[in-house]
């Protein structure tokens, strides 16, 4: 099987140009491609469109890209917890398309799976429905939604192999599998990279066919947004 390994984040993202459409995995700060984002921050590019469920926080994740004014447009479902984001949005610097979370997940899934459009009940009768086809099936109303694809998808997994197969951990899976499939070029960073053949084929979450480049990331911070604990009994 072809070896998709690249040496590091810098090499993996070196051909991402200004104006590119990116998908960035993660939910909140969980399962985000920290190494790729750090490498992007070192590049002199802008005008990016970022498709990501959230927009990071002020000093972590996509929030850092916003601070550097690299992002022209965000396509997300929830963008709270980010003052710089709110400032850019209200000032008109940043274009934002807000999409129901399930619709976002399904549009990305559709992009990877070759489904150009589908119907969902989410958003019927709301401002999300503006300009969209509404159709009744079996007595209920649905909106037609289109697929989403990206020039580059940046995903983060727990384990990966040189053939590009990925296994995620916990709720850090979230949007990563669909984005891996919807990127024209998909770049995967993993905590542990092993030779092809070492992962159980039955436990792969993202088959290697979707991944064009893979590398072992380093220094994962895995910032926690809301640290909630209980007392030990």
């Amino acid at each position, binding site marked *: 099987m072809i070896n998709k390994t690249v040496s590091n984040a810098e090499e993996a993202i070196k051909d991402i140009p200004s104006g590119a459409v990116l998908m960035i995995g993660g939910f*909140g700060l*969980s399962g985000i491609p920290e190494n790729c984002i750090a490498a992007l921050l070192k590049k002199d590019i802008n005008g990016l469109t970022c498709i990501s469920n959230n927009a990071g926080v002020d000093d972590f994740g996509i929030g850092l890209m916003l601070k550097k004014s690299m992002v022209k447009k965000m396509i997300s*479902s929830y963008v709270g*917890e980010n003052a710089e984001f709110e400032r850019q949005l209200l000032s008109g610097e940043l274009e934002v398309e807000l999409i129901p979370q399930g619709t976002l997940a399904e549009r990305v899934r559709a992009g990877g799976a070759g489904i150009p459009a589908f119907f969902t009940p989410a958003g019927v009768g*709301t401002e999300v429905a503006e300009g969209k086809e509404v159709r009744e099936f079996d007595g209920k109303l649905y909106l037609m939604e289109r697929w989403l694809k990206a020039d580059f998808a940046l995903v983060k997994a727990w384990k990966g192999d040189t053939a590009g197969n990925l296994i995620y951990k*916990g709720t850090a899976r979230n949007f990563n599998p669909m984005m891996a499939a919807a990127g024209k070029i998909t770049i995967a960073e993993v905590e542990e990279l092993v030779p092809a053949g070492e992962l159980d084929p039955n436990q792969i979450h993202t088959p290697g066919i979707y991944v064009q480049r893979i590398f072992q990331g380093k220094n994962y911070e895995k910032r*926690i947004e809301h640290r909630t604990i209980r007392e030990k009994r």
Partner: protein
Amino acid sequence: MLNKNQIAQRIAKEVKKGQYINLGIGIPTLVANYIPDNLDVVLQSENGLLGIGPFPTEDQIDPDLINAGKQTITMVKGSSLFSSAESFGMIRGGHVHLTILGAMEVSENGDIANWKIPAKMVKGMGGAMDLVASAENIIVAMQHCSKDGQSKLLKKCSLPITGIRCVKKIVSDLAVLEVLPEGGFKLLERAPGISVEEIRSKTEGRLVVEGEIPEMKFD
């Protein structure tokens, strides 16, 4: 007038054995504290988990295990993890029996507004629009009135709505109300010490009162 924990406690009584439930952020999260173990319910987190457990102890914290409110959590026995697409497939496909969420406004035909205040709050809808468009039973936890005393149970929502004709029941700090299929809030229970008259005066939408309205009971 109920406090947040009492609202959560009252909502917990609506839960049935073996249900799969999605709890929204805020008061709905507190509901988990009042669901008896023997009901064997399973809590879904729309970011990809069935079987939310209690918050972790210090040494159990795992940054790769959070709920939809981005809080660190644990898993119970029999949990499963999955992608966001699978998670919303579950929600949209009607497999989640009950959704409990907060609201800024509810209208008498069951419309809900809880995601946006124009020119003021632009955080996004998250999974709320999918949840309200999909779940077979939606219960809302909310304050009956705004801080300046305006009713939030309206004829028609004034804020941008999250979903239409979807709310089945409301537990507010003043009352338990059912949204009637033909429209209108049917008063089911009063908070301890709150009169029907007070509820009527604080409900802008059509209030339906039939017979004697009991006070809520807490164990």
